[in-house]
């Protein structure tokens, strides 16, 4: 096949203008032929989903879900604040213990060495 063939065929198809027929009645026919059982089933599932969602929201409100969430978030905030404050205190008052640091480094090396050996396999 040559470039000329390609151009000739493309030009012919462009000139011939293969129509793109649009027919609104076609869409209606397709929609009316959708299987009734499947349509009912899908509608039922959709309603069931809506009902479950509504029940979940109702339960959430009835069981004071908003209050529970507020309480939980306050607790988390308090714990975080406490931890940060404690870390600050430790950093400012404690002196570095070289023996502990050396042991930590040794332990880290021990942990890393076998994992590096096995990660290659």
């Amino acid at each position, binding site marked *: 096949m040559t470039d000329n*063939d390609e151009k000739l065929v493309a030009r012919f198809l462009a000139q*011939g203008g293969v129509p793109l*027929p649009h027919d609104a009645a*076609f869409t209606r026919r397709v929609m009316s032929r959708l299987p009734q059982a499947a349509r009912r089933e899908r509608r039922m599932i959709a309603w069931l989903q809506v009902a479950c969602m509504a029940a979940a929201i109702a339960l959430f409100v009835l069981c004071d879900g908003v209050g529970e969430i507020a309480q939980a978030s306050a607790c988390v905030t308090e714990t975080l604040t406490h931890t940060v404050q404690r870390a600050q205190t430790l950093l400012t008052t404690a002196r570095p213990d070289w023996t502990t640091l050396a042991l930590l480094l040794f332990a880290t090396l021990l942990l890393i060495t076998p994992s590096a050996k096995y990660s290659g396999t």
Partner: protein
Amino acid sequence: MNNIEDMALVAQVTLLHSERAFARLVDRYQGAMRRFFLVQTLGDTALSDDLAQDTFLRVWQGLPTFHATSSFRTWLYRVAYHVYLSHVRSQHPADALDAVAARSLPVSEPDASLGMDLVEAMRILSAEERLCVTLQLIDGHRIARVAQITGLCENTVKSHLSRGKHKMANYLRQNGYDRQ
């Protein structure tokens, strides 16, 4: 952009079971589907409409299994291709697509919706050549996508395209199209 809109409509159909969204998908692709079948059936409007309807009904039933590994458009054409194959096989069971399609050409005159010359030019192609030429030159799919739709390997698609275009070009030259 079209793909994003398609995916939004597909999501509405699969998650919210929206018939309105499905109607929009049908509206959007009915022209392309009917044209695809119109070329495959060499201008048989009634048959191509029936096949296009079957395609959309299969899409409605199969949408929950569509996992968006390809675009909706590609998937739709794949369904259409299988509908066409099923139709051909139901007419002539246990035959290859080419052998069947060669015999199942309409005896009656094609409808005016396809140009007479186009029908004649398509008639000289084998079914697989016609399919590949339609998908690439009329529907605008890339070769990789044609392969994905038809399940053929890319090299086979390329050789169908090459032979199909060569045959069409020869036909057009014989009928004076190269002098226009």
